[in-house]
């Protein structure tokens, strides 16, 4: 478990103070995959680095499994770090050493017996699917393979926590997918808690259980991935969600609607879980004598829960429309009027 308590980090450069973290309160439960998303400069890398004290908080406290680490001595911190694996955007492998040596490094530092090291490295190479690459050097491998080596190295000391610093940001979409699959396996098979930072909402949607949105050193929104994706509150969150879930009317369609008739109201209907798949459209249409025109629709899956999104134009008497909306809301469908931008 990782807990942040009012964590602040301030850099002083010359006369200017930069507040990288501005009071972070966050709890990552054991076994979770927690994603922190933000634009560059939001404070993500400072945040993840306070967990293993690569950066010390200016104030506030960080707890690992209930232990306050901010007060520990350098030696104690090194011990804690062996329980916290970390992988990086640019992998940070030793180019002068073989794949085997790179993975063995954390064990060599801990003066593990050689036979034990060889056994562990083989096991890890097998796990990340690079058993035949042990004697290669990092510059002979692809980006995805390098990240696998980075992951194997991070797991060498059997950590309980894995920190992922933009681990897929330097990889192509296909490789990203395979690395995310690997991270999910690590989470499930070894029950390792994962804290990751990213600027890609796709990564959050793909593997995270929970998400926090970071902006200017503050968490502006946090919750389960399902919650945040389906009901984003903050503008920045909405922008992130929109980057992976297109649920907006295309402009050309909007123009067309404006040209035809402005008086018909348009509503966004969001349904989740059991409300997906009800034949509510035909029912509402019959019951309230309305013509429903679907302008946009999609159904996706978030954390294994189906999530539908429809944009519907209602044509009929105003009173009937209101009654229809009330009835739809009764079916646990979220209704929201779509603002029709002028021009």
């Amino acid at each position, binding site marked *: 478990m990782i807990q942040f308590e009012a964590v602040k980090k301030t850099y002083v450069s010359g006369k200017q103070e930069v507040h990288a973290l501005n009071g972070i309160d966050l709890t990552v439960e054991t076994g979770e995959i927690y994603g922190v998303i933000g634009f560059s400069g939001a404070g993500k890398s400072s945040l993840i680095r306070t967990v293993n004290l690569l950066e010390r908080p200016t104030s506030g406290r960080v707890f690992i499994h209930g232990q306050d680490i901010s007060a520990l001595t350098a030696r104690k911190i090194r011990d804690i*770090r062996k329980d*916290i694996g970390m992988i990086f955007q640019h*992998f*940070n*492998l*030793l180019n002068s050493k*073989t794949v085997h040596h790179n993975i063995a490094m954390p064990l060599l*530092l801990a003066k593990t017996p050689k036979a034990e090291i060889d056994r562990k490295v083989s096991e890890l190479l097998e796990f990340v699917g690079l058993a035949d690459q042990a004697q290669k050097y990092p510059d002979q491998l692809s980006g995805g393979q390098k990240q696998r080596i980075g992951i194997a*190295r991070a797991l060498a000391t059997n950590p309980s926590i894995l920190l992922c610093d933009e681990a897929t940001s330097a990889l192509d979409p296909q490789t990203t997918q395979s690395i995310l699959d690997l991270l999910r396996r690590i989470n499930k098979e070894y029950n390792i808690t994962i804290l990751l930072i990213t600027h890609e909402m796709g990564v959050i949607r793909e593997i995270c259980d929970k998400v926090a949105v970071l902006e200017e050193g503050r968490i502006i929104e946090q919750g389960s991935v399902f919650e945040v994706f389906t009901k984003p509150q903050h503008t920045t969150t909405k922008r992130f969600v929109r980057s992976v879930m297109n649920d907006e009317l295309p402009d050309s369609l909007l123009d067309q609607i404006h040209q035809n008739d402005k008086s018909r109201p348009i509503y966004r209907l969001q349904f989740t879980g059991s409300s997906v798949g009800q034949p509510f459209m035909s029912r509402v249409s019959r019951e309230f004598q309305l013509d429903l025109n679907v302008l946009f629709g999609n159904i996706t899956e978030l954390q294994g829960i189906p999530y539908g999104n429809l944009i519907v134009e209602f044509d009929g008497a105003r009173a009937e429309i209101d009654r229809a909306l009330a009835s739809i809301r009764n079916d646990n469908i979220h209704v929201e009027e779509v603002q029709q931008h002028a021009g």
Partner: protein
Amino acid sequence: MQVNQSQILEALWETFYMTGASFVFSLVIGLPLGILLVVTRKGHLLENEVVFNILNIVINIFRSIPFIILMVAIIPLTRLIVGTSIGTAAAIVPLVFYAGPYIARLIENSLLEVDKGVIEAAQAMGASPGQIIFRFLIPEALSSLVLALTIAIVGLIGASAMAGAIGGGGLGDLAITYGYQRFDTMVMFLTVAILVVLVQGVQSLGNLMSRRVRRS
């Protein structure tokens, strides 16, 4: 020609001796200083402004004194250490004062080339400062370090020839006493030719070793 083969061989040996011995001593002094220059700088492993600034200034002072002046200036110290200020052994002292700070700078440069991310990864896996220096920084910089030290050796060959000016022996001494002062063009030509071959050889060997240690 006013010199015979055995005189040339003796001079060559003296050059080897001066260069080799002063290189070893310079490395012993320059390596720790170079490492300190890196790790004590701002934001690094063992950040220490006082140590860094003192080292930085002292090294700059030694680096700015021309070798020929340094040789004369430290004669009392040379006499204290070696017992005499003339001869091959005596030449080693100023050579070390000349090359030690130089090597420190070269090593500093090579170590600074190591990707900061590698150091961060080392810290993240719980490595101590000593482990980071010897298991990460130096192995990653080794290829570049070998090339840097090759430059230092070539520099020392040149400087040791200059040490001939104060009777330090070696090929430089031969060139000055016979080639320059007695106008023996042949000796001058021969010593320069030997020095050229020597430098070429050292540089080729350095390049080869640098490639060898790139992966270890």
